[in-house]
């Protein structure tokens, strides 16, 4: 046997072992490299919001705070949080609409409020963003009003009550109320319009009964498609669901009813068992920064909660960016609504069954 053959003797076993080790090393390398890197688990939306978060906002946060931001965009979030351990929750920061935040706080899944000392940018938000109707802190809001087609000759629409007009029969879009925030907020609006106030459910049920025939969808994205395709001529929608088609020559418009618009809040809260609370608070503070708020607002047409944000004229003209405009927002008492949710769901499921 020569010296060289002893030095480089390569058996099949050695080759396989070396290949397996190399493979395992390649696979494990990123995890080993990030072993000490903090991870912040948050929830978030898909679509345009998800795109800009993934491309710009998220990476910038990771670089600045030297962490990994893991975002779950697969709904529903609350059942996953509900099923996870209280001491090691699946999310550190929960981002949902207000109704789910109230359900979460009732179940002890999130902390009721965010500490302003740990999130200094809270000092700059509009009062509605930290009002007693909000769990955690609201970072953006949309105005819930009426989305409609402009090419059907429906004429001028100024009031929520126009939604009941017989000319919209068969062309009216609504929501699966048990599953949708806008639908649930609309129930409260019905009580206000036709009864003694948000909590007048009998008046609301009677009003809902008169909306048939109606086409129901579960998400705002589906409502947008319903209106864009012409299947519906009018539907309950948030302003961003219409404004995002700005410049695309679509025959759609958003109507701000004279009675006011309902508030669709984007809310962040911290889970009590989170092991990354400091980072979670930093994330909330980061999302309230004027530059981050401006970028997101001008991408998804959400109204920023931070009153220091200066939007470009096109956005400023349409979004809720002044105290006067913000004063039109009607906030829903979700705590009360969630306490009645089973009863309401049972009733509206009966009302809208075919």
């Amino acid at each position, binding site marked *: 046997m020569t010296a060289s053959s002893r030095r480089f003797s390569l058996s099949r076993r050695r080759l396989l072992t070396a290949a397996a080790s190399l493979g395992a090393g390649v696979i494990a390398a990123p995890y080993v490299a990030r072993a000490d890197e903090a991870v912040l688990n948050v929830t978030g939306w898909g679509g345009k919001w998800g795109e800009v978060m993934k491309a710009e906002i998220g990476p910038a946060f990771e670089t600045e705070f030297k962490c990994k931001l893991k975002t779950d965009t697969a709904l529903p979030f*609350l059942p996953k949080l509900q*099923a996870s351990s209280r001491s090691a929750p699946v999310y550190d920061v929960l981002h949902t609409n207000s109704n789910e935040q109230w359900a979460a706080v009732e179940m002890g899944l999130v902390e009721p409020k965010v500490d302003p000392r740990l999130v200094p940018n809270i000092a700059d938000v509009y009062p509605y963003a930290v009002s007693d109707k909000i769990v955690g802190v609201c970072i953006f809001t949309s105005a819930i009003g009426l989305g409609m087609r402009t090419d059907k000759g429906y004429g001028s629409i100024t009031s929520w009550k126009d939604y009941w007009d017989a000319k919209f029969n068969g062309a009216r879009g609504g929501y699966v109320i048990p599953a949708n925030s806008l639908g649930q907020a609309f129930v409260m609006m019905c009580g206000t319009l036709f009864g003694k106030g948000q909590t007048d459910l009998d008046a609301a049920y009677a009003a809902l009964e008169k909306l048939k025939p109606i086409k129901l969808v*579960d998400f705002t994205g589906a409502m947008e498609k319903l209106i864009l395709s012409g299947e519906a001529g009018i539907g309950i929608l948030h302003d961003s669901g219409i404004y995002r088609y700005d410049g695309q020559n679509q025959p759609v418009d958003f109507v701000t009813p004279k009675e006011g618009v309902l508030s669709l809040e984007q809310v962040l809260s911290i889970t009590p068992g989170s092991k990354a609370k400091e980072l979670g608070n930093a994330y909330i503070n980061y999302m309230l920064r004027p530059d981050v708020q401006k970028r997101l607002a001008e991408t998804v047409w959400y109204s920023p909660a931070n009153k220091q944000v200066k939007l470009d004229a096109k956005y400023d003209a349409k979004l809720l960016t002044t105290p006067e405009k913000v004063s039109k927002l009607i906030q829903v008492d979700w705590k009360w609504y969630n306490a009645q949710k089973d009863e309401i*769901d049972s009733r509206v*499921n009966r009302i809208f*069954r*075919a």
Partner: protein
Amino acid sequence: MPATGAPRVNSLALLILPSALLFALFFFLPIGLMAVMSVLTGNPVVMPHVGFTAKHYARIGNDSYYLEVIWTTLRIGLWTTIVALVIGYPLAHWMARIRSRSGHALLLMAVLAPMLTGIVVRTFAWMTLLSDKGVINQVLAALGLISTPLQLMYNESGIIIGLVHIYVPFMVLTLTGVIGRIDERLEQAAENLGASPWRTFLEVTLPLSLPGILAGSLLVFALAISAYVTPILLGGFQIMTLPILIYQQISANFNVGFAAALGMVLLAISLMLVIAYNHVLGLVSGQRELQ
């Protein structure tokens, strides 16, 4: 001398062990957990004080709405099964008896081709056909036959159309194997003895294919009553079935216990129907072993 009293393990039985474990882990364990959750006041993994309760079942029994949902689910399942059988049986018979190999292959491809597309895509395809602005209504309106759109979806009929399209291949493939194994000489003997082709079918082919009808029907029925995507899209959220209600309870009401109770009710009713179906078919066909 070997010990005669020691139990001998059949080595072949060991081969069944992995699949038996898999079955226990992914079938019995989830159903067992669901049964337990349906009688608890909360989730014992995350809540400290959890007790037993019958409130979820009482809620189902005391509110006629839930009974209506159960009946709607079963009605859709039964209609889907019947229509799939009526459409699938002649096709399966043709496939089983066709002499041409290429003809059989073409038929098989025709049956299998829709299965190569996802259920969501196929359901959306039906929506483009059946909606108010869909192909059918647009064509009828263009021909001047209708002035207002026909209500082809957002109702039970729309759901049944979609489900039948999706589940007919399951019926056909199940029936083809059974009909193909029927000895054709029995049919020839019946015809030689003077029976008409129709009577031969009714008295020879149909009874002998009952096991296939039973298996195909149970498969389609089970799939139809547990369907979620098609009922929700073609029903336009206005037809409530148990799977939709169960998902709603978990995702929007966060009431896992009630959802589990609804699931157990669906399972119990399905089992009862399967047993009854077996019994009736056994009596009709005279095949006592079916009972």
